[in-house]
């Protein structure tokens, strides 16, 4: 109980901190309805207890005789609730319209949801697994799904919008304070629904510009296998594919490269570079025996240097691969001299 009361200073007992321009209006209505509810609950419960004491039955021979109806009283207690709910409706509708309509000139971010991963794309095509936004800037979101329905939810912004396959849903917000906040999937989407969470990082404009620029070449200067390991951790691969041989929703990545893969249909294939690339971009093409066809495609949300990184990473953790793993750091544009035949024995 103490832990509940000892929340951070600007959070109330009931609400999380308010960190967007629309949060204040939401919280105002929330508190109005809250105190109205407290009033009516206290009134009803108070009368309940009072009547139980005052009119407590003393003998079963009592035959009380009170009023049985009164149209005036009925109308009297119908009107105040009616007026109250109309006020609340109007207030809620106005708040909703403000939430719904992004201001002109808002900066657009594409949000792509798949089981069980969030992928964000900035205006220059830079990919990110966390949503980085500049503070005090209106951000509009275009939400798409690669498989089932998800829902974009950031409690401190009071923003939620379903991500529906086959539709472009939109949402917007303007963050008011620098900080790192939780972003949840709010619509049940299967096994790891509760793991489908990431962070919203609100930064100063300066920091944000720097971050986006870095995201456009984040693999620059890193060894390919390191890039692959980061892709595994950040793009949601780890939700289904373990690195230690444990079976998950998908097969473990350990010892895959160079092994013979058996499929639910079609002939077996030895896992090589083409097989890995194909499995990332067309996952339904070859479904490994004993697993279900549930993986979404990463077409459009993964860059070629990142795929190269994954391939080298897989080589580095496979006992079935006897060749060398690329050690040379990658460059911003990808990987010059990536002709893999040169590095293989």
């Amino acid at each position, binding site marked *: *109980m103490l*832990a*509940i009361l000892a929340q951070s200073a600007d959070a109330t007992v*009931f609400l*999380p901190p308010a960190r967007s321009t629309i949060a204040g209006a*939401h919280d105002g209505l*929330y508190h109005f*309805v809250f105190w*109205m*509810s407290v009033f009516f*609950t206290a009134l*009803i*419960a108070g009368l*309940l207890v009072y*009547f139980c004491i005052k*009119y*407590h*039955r003393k*003998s*079963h021979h*009592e*035959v*009380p005789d*009170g009023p*049985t109806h009164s149209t005036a*009283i*009925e109308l009297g*207690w*119908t009107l105040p609730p009616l007026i109250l*709910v*109309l006020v609340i409706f109007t*207030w*809620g*509708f106005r*708040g*909703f319209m403000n*939430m719904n309509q992004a201001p002109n000139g808002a900066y657009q971010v594409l949000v792509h949801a798949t089981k069980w991963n969030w992928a964000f794309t900035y205006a220059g095509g830079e990919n990110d697994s966390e949503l980085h936004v500049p503070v005090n800037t209106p951000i509009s979101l275009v939400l798409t799904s690669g*498989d089932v*329905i998800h*829902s974009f939810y950031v*409690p401190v912004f*009071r923003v939620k*919008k*379903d991500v*529906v*396959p*086959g*539709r472009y849903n*939109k949402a917007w917000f303007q963050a008011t304070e620098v900080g790192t906040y*939780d972003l*949840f999937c709010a*619509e*049940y989407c299967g*096994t*790891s*629904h*509760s793991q489908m969470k990431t962070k919203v990082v609100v930064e100063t404009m300066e920091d944000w510009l720097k971050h986006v620029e870095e995201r456009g070449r984040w693999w620059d200067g890193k060894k390919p296998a390191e890039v692959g390991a980061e892709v595994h951790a950040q793009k949601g691969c780890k939700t289904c594919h373990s690195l230690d041989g444990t079976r*998950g*929703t998908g097969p473990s990545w350990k010892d895959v490269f160079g092994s013979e893969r058996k499929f639910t249909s079609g002939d077996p294939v030895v896992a090589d570079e083409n097989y890995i690339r194909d499995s990332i971009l067309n996952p339904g093409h070859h479904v490994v025996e004993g697993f279900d066809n*549930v993986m979404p495609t990463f077409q459009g949300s993964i860059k070629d240097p990142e795929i190269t990184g994954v391939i080298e990473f897989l080589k580095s953790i496979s006992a079935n691969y006897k060749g060398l793993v690329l050690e040379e750091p990658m460059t911003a544009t990808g990987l010059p001299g990536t002709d893999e035949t040169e590095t293989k024995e």
Partner: protein
Amino acid sequence: MSVIHDPVKAGIHGGQAPGGTNYINNSKGILSWLLTVDHKRIGLMYMVCVLGAFLLGGSFAIMLRTMLFIRAASETPISEGAQNMYNQAFTLHGAILVFMFIIPAVPAILGNMVLPLMLGAKDVAFPRLNLLSWYCWVGGAIFFMFVLINGGLDTGWTFYTPYSSSTTTAATTATMGAFILGFSSILTGLNFIATIHMLRPPGMGWFQMPLFLWALYATSVIQVLATPVLAITLLLLMAERILHVGIFDPALGGDPVLFQHFFWFYSHPAVYIMVLPAMGIISELMSTFCRRHIFGYSFIAFSSVAIALLGFLVWGHHMFTSGQSAMTNAVFSLITFSVAIPSAIKVFNWLATMYKGSIWLATPMLYALAFIWLFTIGGLTGVFLGALSLDIMAHDTYFVVAHFHYVMVGSMLTAFIGGMYYWWPKMFGKMYSEPVAKVAWFLIFFGFNLTFFIQFIAGSKGMPRRYADFVPEYAIYHEISTIGSYVLASGLFLVLFNWIHSLKYGRKAPQNPWGANTLEWHTSSPPPTENFVEDPPVSEPYVLGAWEYDASIEGFVHNKEKAAKLAQMSHH
């Protein structure tokens, strides 16, 4: 099909059937139950099965709350096996309790038991159809049991597409089960509508009907009109899963939000299938235990009808975040608020019934009081969710979970248990232990509020629903909630123990232990197979003065002279 009154059999007075037989002991053997067309026996068969479903669905609730408690206390990441297990637990918890318990509980158990009795009738209008409805329930239940042993179910009870069209769990079997259970509901509703229209005794106009019957009538209309939409929706889902006809799955050219419209077109009115008959029970309890004419009879009756009709027009409020147009959202929000008015009217009328009453805090009345507390909180938190901007924040969080548990479980369950205690003496001819019943009431009331009130806070803070895992700041709410659920469960087991114990050791029940005047109290406890050995005297259901307390039988006895006098007075 008229009111059955056999003057030859009516040789013995006092409502006792010849030879002391009643509907329970007048024939023996399993076939005498499985082939019975007696509404009371069908009610009892429903009781055993539906309570079994309650135990099963409740076990899943305890399981998932325990998993959340363990999760709250644990440092290590949650395994995928545990996530799957949690998803299956909340799905089966919801699906079993909604389709197999909450929807049938009051109409099929208590409605079947007392609706014909309240009309002074021998049975429902279509007794064989009534038995068929029970077999439909059993058929649907078998499909659900098959789901349990055949891959489980992880879609949530809402079966949202396209997840449900693509999951590898036994979604097809489960939808088939829900489809068949729907027919049980439709047949019961149809039967009740026909019975109320055709079998009211001479002298009982619509406005001399007990309010429980008004509530059952309004419920039946929803069951008959809304359930077929669910059936069609589930068939379309099966067509998509089995035949790959694109209806809801965008990969096949369908629209997933269409499914939500279809689903909630049934499932929102279904909330009123759950709570309307519960409200009917409360009206009966309030009048009886305040020993007073119910206040505002016609307002309560019409508010049931208003809720039933408006309930059809609010389904879109489940989709405020789905991307439907702002105009659609506004219309659904406004109509949603209109449901608040008839609900408030009912609560105020019940309170007014207590005013200047003679309040007897017997166990059924305690449940009625608990109902008012829980329904008030459930209703007022509905005001939060009806407001568009607040719903955007609260949708799919524990706020919604807490809200609908207060309405669907807190309100409905307390009314159901209160009604069970109220009619228990009539059903079985035995009185339960009052002290044990009161202890159990306290555990349930305290446990329920501890379990679910804390969830309003968790939800307002942003805890999403259907989460096997959560960020650490929500752990405390889950711990408290789980402890509450254990208290609640222990209270429910105590209720069950008290009921079973009373069957063997309970004091013999008088004909009318409470002094109510609806017609079921004008026959013996338990009633004979044909319900009444002589026509019960039809009078105003809430004029109670003709019943006088007799301490020697700890019950009320009907004074015919007084009744005649009161009848004369009300005609003036």
